[in-house]
């Protein structure tokens, strides 16, 4: 087993080293595409880390992404870059902690409703603060960060997220979450502190999303609330994670890569009907592939191996 892990680790490192060379290609278009791919891979994986095992649908990806981006817009020129990232991560964790502690103690629906409105709420608060207190709406981001820097930061974050996800899945916390996903009442009876487990993982996942927002912010140079809190991001990330299959750590990648490429193509070709097409793709996934591509692979491998298909009673 440990030999397998070592081999897998070596392959991952080699892949990482190869991917790190992408900016050296010197093609701005491919670099931009690679940044989009990494961005959505991290966001979808982070989404799946929490929502996959617990089956609590979070619609607040944009809210955290926006908090990160806006932190950079406000502090980018004042503090050194690592400190800016740290502040963004801390802010994201605090917001996630508050949201988690107030809604995750209750039934899952309240959590969904709250995350559905969270983006709008934070956007309104930011606008209110900017209009009344700081008296600027829309800020310029002048930081000395190139596209290649953004790419490398995202790559490191991707590696970190996968490592973290792998470690969590092997820990007591990960096991507790899987039990909660199967049956929350049983989890409570086993002595699992369900609220703590849920809030902890939600906070971790949200912190990662906030970091992505912060890292991506220098790409825009001009940021206003409607750009930072664009609800399409929540939607796209949700589609990707579901297509890939959120119950596996490696599932969301399988959705993020093809869909980022597809969205790139569609938004250029059909800018006006893009939203409708997105909605239709999403509906197709919900109806045809409820367990995602990962679920499809598992089904194929179990039937090919001749093993009896196990059905987990939900």
């Amino acid at each position, binding site marked *: 087993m440990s030999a397998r892990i070592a081999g897998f680790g070596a392959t991952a490192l080699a892949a990482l080293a190869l991917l790190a060379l992408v900016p050296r290609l010197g093609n701005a278009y491919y670099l931009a595409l690679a940044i989009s791919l990494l961005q959505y891979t991290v966001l979808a994986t982070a989404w799946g880390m929490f929502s996959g095992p617990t*089956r609590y*649908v979070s*619609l607040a990806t944009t809210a955290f992404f926006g908090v990160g981006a806006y932190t950079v817009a406000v502090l980018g020129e004042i503090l050194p870059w690592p400190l800016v990232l740290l502040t963004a991560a801390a802010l994201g964790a605090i917001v996630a902690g508050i949201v988690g502690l*107030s*809604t995750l103690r*209750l*039934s*899952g*629906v*309240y959590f*969904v*409703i*709250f995350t*559905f*409105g969270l983006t*709008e*709420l934070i956007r*309104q*608060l930011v*606008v*209110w603060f900017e*209009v*009344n207190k700081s008296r600027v709406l829309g800020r310029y981001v002048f930081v000395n960060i190139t596209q290649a820097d953004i790419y490398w930061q995202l790559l490191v974050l991707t590696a970190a997220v996968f490592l973290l996800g792998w470690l969590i899945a092997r820990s007591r916390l990960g096991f507790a979450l899987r039990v909660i996903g199967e049956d929350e009442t049983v989890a409570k009876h086993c002595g699992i502190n369900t609220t703590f487990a849920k809030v902890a993982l939600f906070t971790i996942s949200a912190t990662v999303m906030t970091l992505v927002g912060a890292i991506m912010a220098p790409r825009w140079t001009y940021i206003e609330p409607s750009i930072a809190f664009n*609800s399409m991001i929540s*939607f796209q990330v*949700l589609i990707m994670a*579901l297509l890939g299959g959120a119950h596996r750590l490696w599932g969301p990648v399988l959705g993020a890569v093809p869909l980022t490429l597809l969205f790139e193509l569609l938004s250029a070709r059909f800018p*006006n*009907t*893009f*939203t*409708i*097409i*997105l*909605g*239709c793709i*999403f*509906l197709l996934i*919900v*109806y045809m592939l*409820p367990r995602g591509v990962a679920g499809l692979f598992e089904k194929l491998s179990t039937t090919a191996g001749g093993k009896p298909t196990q059905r987990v*009673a*939900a």
Partner: protein
Amino acid sequence: MTNAILTGLMLGGMYALIAMGLTLQYGVARIMNLSYGEFLIAAAFASHWLFTGWAISPFVGLALVVPLAFVLNFAIYKLLLTPLVRRAPNRDALEVDSILATFGLTFVIQGSMLALFGGAYYSYSFLAFPVQFLGETVAANRLAALGITILLGLALYAALTRTRAGTAVRAVAVDPFAAQLVAINVPQASALTFALGGALVAAAGVLVSTFLTFSASSGVVFTMKALIVVVMGGVGNMLGCLVAGLALGLSEALVASYVDPGLTLAVNFALFLAVLLVKPAGLLGRATR
């Protein structure tokens, strides 16, 4: 002060009307409909089109739009949502599936409206003159909308508590399995209730369009407010819907006139959280889960 309270009550009445349809859809048909606000905006656009294109008064427009919405929502339930109901092993799984499906539907409807009408804000002037009411000056269209809201609410309440079909609907809301034991056709009742909820939100959309400006992308806010009112009042509870709607409207109007109009959503959420922390089942709801 009286002005703020009057505005708040009118706003609250509107929220109660908006939320009534959702409490039916969620409480009885068990569908958590995230595309709810989009249906409201679609009805508002229909009313706008009827009024500006054909000079049909919104009150006559109600008679056209509401039955159409009923049929449309019935079809949506039968075609899109029945497969999910059949597939779901339990109530929680149906909730997750319906959230996802209607979330996708949101973007289909919103995208269609954006393609048809663009992102601009729309409004039309109907009954836009001031009248004296309880010593305060209010807009006639708001007052008319409030009157119709009250009529609709009373009619719905009477239908649910005084008729056989209404009793069946309430039975399904309490326990879908036990309802089958007393020969209630639960799938049929669910479909009809979902459609009724859709008809109600269409009525709300037509009424809202007479006094509010709206755009293709403003549906999310209405969904949000309806969800908050439904959960605050207790899922499936008509009276709770009214109480929560009025509370929300009043708090919003008071904050808008005394603190800052930019903080209304924050107040909504604060109220929502406060109610959830004290009474998780809602103001008038009974703890069942």
